[in-house]
């Protein structure tokens, strides 16, 4: 079970709702993924198009726990105001907190992130911060009141997988009791399996599923990879070694003579 802010989930795959070819493919992908948590956003509403009203109906039909983001916010102030609008709109204290520093990398502004996380936690929000693999930022986010951390694997939408695996291992080792969810940069189910094998608690995906040739099939593939990675972590992986080690018993090998051994 994945437990985040006191709520437990069977699925360790959190799915974004953007960029799908159609509303029905989004719905089918959520079902194929077995996702119980979906991310959503807020955007300016036109009085003519009223786009958000139809989307909200679709989200309600999914029946998932909704995790609103503050995507696109550049300052702590913007993120705080957006989080408050999201809380009222979606009726949840959960927020996927993003404070973006740079257009090309979409990397988090860690200073603004910590500032916003502390302010929001102080107002009763349950903050899931989109952060980097940086250990000191993670420590400050935990001190600010975050009981979940969401480090990136690679820049959003880049599909590059785990570009700093050593630092992600360090983060896991330093925070054995904090749920760690990889958010951003995953491209293939093998990336997701790898991070789950490392003991991460979950994976948040969007582009890798939504932009696949067949998003529904890819959602199913990720679900299997994440479940397999988790099972492998629980089973306990063997350590890699430099030299070969025979798996078939040596004792009783036919034609074996002691003076051939080297």
């Amino acid at each position, binding site marked *: 079970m994945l437990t985040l802010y006191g709520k437990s989930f069977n699925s360790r795959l959190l799915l974004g709702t953007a960029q799908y070819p159609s509303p029905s493919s989004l719905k089918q992908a959520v079902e194929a993924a077995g996702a119980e948590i979906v991310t959503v956003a807020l955007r*300016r*509403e036109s009085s003519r198009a009223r786009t*958000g009203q139809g989307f909200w109906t679709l989200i309600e039909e999914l029946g998932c726990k909704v995790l609103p983001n503050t995507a696109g916010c550049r300052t702590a102030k913007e993120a705080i105001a957006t989080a408050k609008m999201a809380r009222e709109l979606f009726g949840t204290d959960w927020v996927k907190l993003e404070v973006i520093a740079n257009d090309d990398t979409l990397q988090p502004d860690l200073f603004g992130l910590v500032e916003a996380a502390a302010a929001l936690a102080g107002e009763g929000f349950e903050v899931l911060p989109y952060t980097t693999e940086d250990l000191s930022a993670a420590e400050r986010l935990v001190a600010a009141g975050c009981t979940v951390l969401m480090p990136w694997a690679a820049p959003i939408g880049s599909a590059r997988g785990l570009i700093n695996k050593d630092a992600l291992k360090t983060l896991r080792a330093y925070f054995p009791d904090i749920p760690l969810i990889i958010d951003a940069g995953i491209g293939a189910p093998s990336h997701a399996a790898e991070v789950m094998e490392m003991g991460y608690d979950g994976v948040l995906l969007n582009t890798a599923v939504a932009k696949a040739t067949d998003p529904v099939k890819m959602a199913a593939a990720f679900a299997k990879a994440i479940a397999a990675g988790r099972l492998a972590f629980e089973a306990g992986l063997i350590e890699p070694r430099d030299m070969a080690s025979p798996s078939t018993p040596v004792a009783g090998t036919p034609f074996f003579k002691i003076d051939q051994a080297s």
Partner: protein
Amino acid sequence: MKILLNGEAFATDAETLDELCARLGFAQAKIATAVNGSFVAAAQRLATPLADADEIEIVAPRQGG
């Protein structure tokens, strides 16, 4: 008066944020609001007067990652 509504110039004589939302057809809609960068709760819209050059944000649910 002239305000900035969702980043665009907009002329209105609505006296409150609540009245502005109603005139835009959002009375029953799933929206949230901010004035000059700060969140304004639905229950506070009636008590939020509008002034010239106010920057108003009206947002709704949307796809997100």
